[in-house]
């Protein structure tokens, strides 16, 4: 209890260093004056009395230092003085200050950018239930090991038929889903006079059910939407996109949006927080994989060859 009080008082004294030093100065001045007076009444001349009082006191500056060490945490006071000195000298050389500030800002900015990327790619958990049960399939290519982060994505690619064969081989032991990277496609929404870009991802029929993600409104893309014998022109939109572009209205379901000149019907809205599997590139819309050709999706448009 006493230690706590002493700690508190020392801290306060550290922050009030100037006031405390001033009080001590006054106190020492009074002390020396009293002592001088006593020596004078003992018969010494004022000068001699003053010197005798100082000698008896034994070092005013040393006393002030000892007093400071006793009453406060010297480092707090030192820090305070250093900060004050630093601010003053920075203010005196604004050019240097500007260069230093810009250097720091760039350094911090670069670090933040790198961490943001790392966070999205490595640290942030996938926005789906039981993310630890998910496995990414990739192939080691002839030129070296695959890039499991999907950076280049080269060896993460499978033809649709290959994907279907793998899914069949997996059978009832699990479910398999495919998704493309986000692509910026040109879209026109109902009432739009200008076109806009949307981040679109093409997904296989089992994509949402494999991840365990259900539509917040309407329905998700299902395997019925990815049959090769007929085209299903539907789109599931993300929660953020829905709020931004449709004002979060239930009327969004059933609306027609035009993407890459193909009219699609909004059939469902993804739950809040689900932004797709590429957490560094959040999706606005999810489209059936089988719409790649009609939409002229150039990255992976070959649905036929193996």
């Amino acid at each position, binding site marked *: 209890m006493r230690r706590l009080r*002493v700690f508190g008082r020392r801290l306060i004294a550290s922050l009030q260093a100037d006031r405390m030093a001033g009080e001590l100065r006054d106190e020492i001045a*009074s002390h020396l004056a009293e002592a001088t007076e006593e020596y004078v009444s003992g018969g010494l001349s004022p000068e001699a009395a003053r010197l005798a009082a100082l000698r*008896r006191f034994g070092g005013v500056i040393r006393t002030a230092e000892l007093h400071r060490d006793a009453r406060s945490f010297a480092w707090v006071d030192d820090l305070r003085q250093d900060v004050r000195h630093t601010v003053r000298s920075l203010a005196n050389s604004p050019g240097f200050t500007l260069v230093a500030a810009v250097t720091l800002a760039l350094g911090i900015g670069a670090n933040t950018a790198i961490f943001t990327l790392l966070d999205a790619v490595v640290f942030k958990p996938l926005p789906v239930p039981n993310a630890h049960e998910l496995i990414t399939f990739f192939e080691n290519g002839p030129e070296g090991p695959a890039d499991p982060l999907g950076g280049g994505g080269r060896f993460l690619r499978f033809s649709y038929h290959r994907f279907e064969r793998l899914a069949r081989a997996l059978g009832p032991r699990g479910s398999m889903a495919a998704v493309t990277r986000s692509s910026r496609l040109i879209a026109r929404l109902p009432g739009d006079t200008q076109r806009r870009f949307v981040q679109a991802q093409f997904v296989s029929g089992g994509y949402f059910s494999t991840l365990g993600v259900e539509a917040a409104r309407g329905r998700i893309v299902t395997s019925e939407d990815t049959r090769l014998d007929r085209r299903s022109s539907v789109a599931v939109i993300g929660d953020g996109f829905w709020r931004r572009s449709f004002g979060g209205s239930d009327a969004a379901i059933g609306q027609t949006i035009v993407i890459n000149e193909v009219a699609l019907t909004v059939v469902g809205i993804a739950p809040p927080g689900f932004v797709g599997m590429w957490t560094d590139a959040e999706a606005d819309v999810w489209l059936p994989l089988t719409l790649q050709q009609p939409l002229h999706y150039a990255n992976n448009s070959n649905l036929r060859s193996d």
Partner: protein
Amino acid sequence: MAPQNDKNDRNDTILYGSLGLMILKTLEALGSLHGYRIARRIEQISGHQLELNQGTLYPALIKLEQSGWIAAKWGESDSGRRVKVYALTRAGRKQLSEQTAQWQRATSIVDRFLKISEDPA
């Protein structure tokens, strides 16, 4: 008048540690005092055998004050000067009796040692 330096060095270690106790005892005996009066009083009671630099009193005073054993407020000296006046607090009174007992125990132990070593047996 000026203290002998070598004498001071010899005295300092033990006596500086007991300076707080001396201050508390002085304030108990005489009530409120300012720094210079405390210093003079300690010199008088020690029969001028103890001549600490008077400045060493002030770090000791601030420590006692921060511990809550003495209280300080600005007042006036007999000659009308603005001085800081120190007084014993209730906690200080308790501390004084504890420290007195401790000191007496310590000195009696050291005393016994010294007597044994003087003993030729």
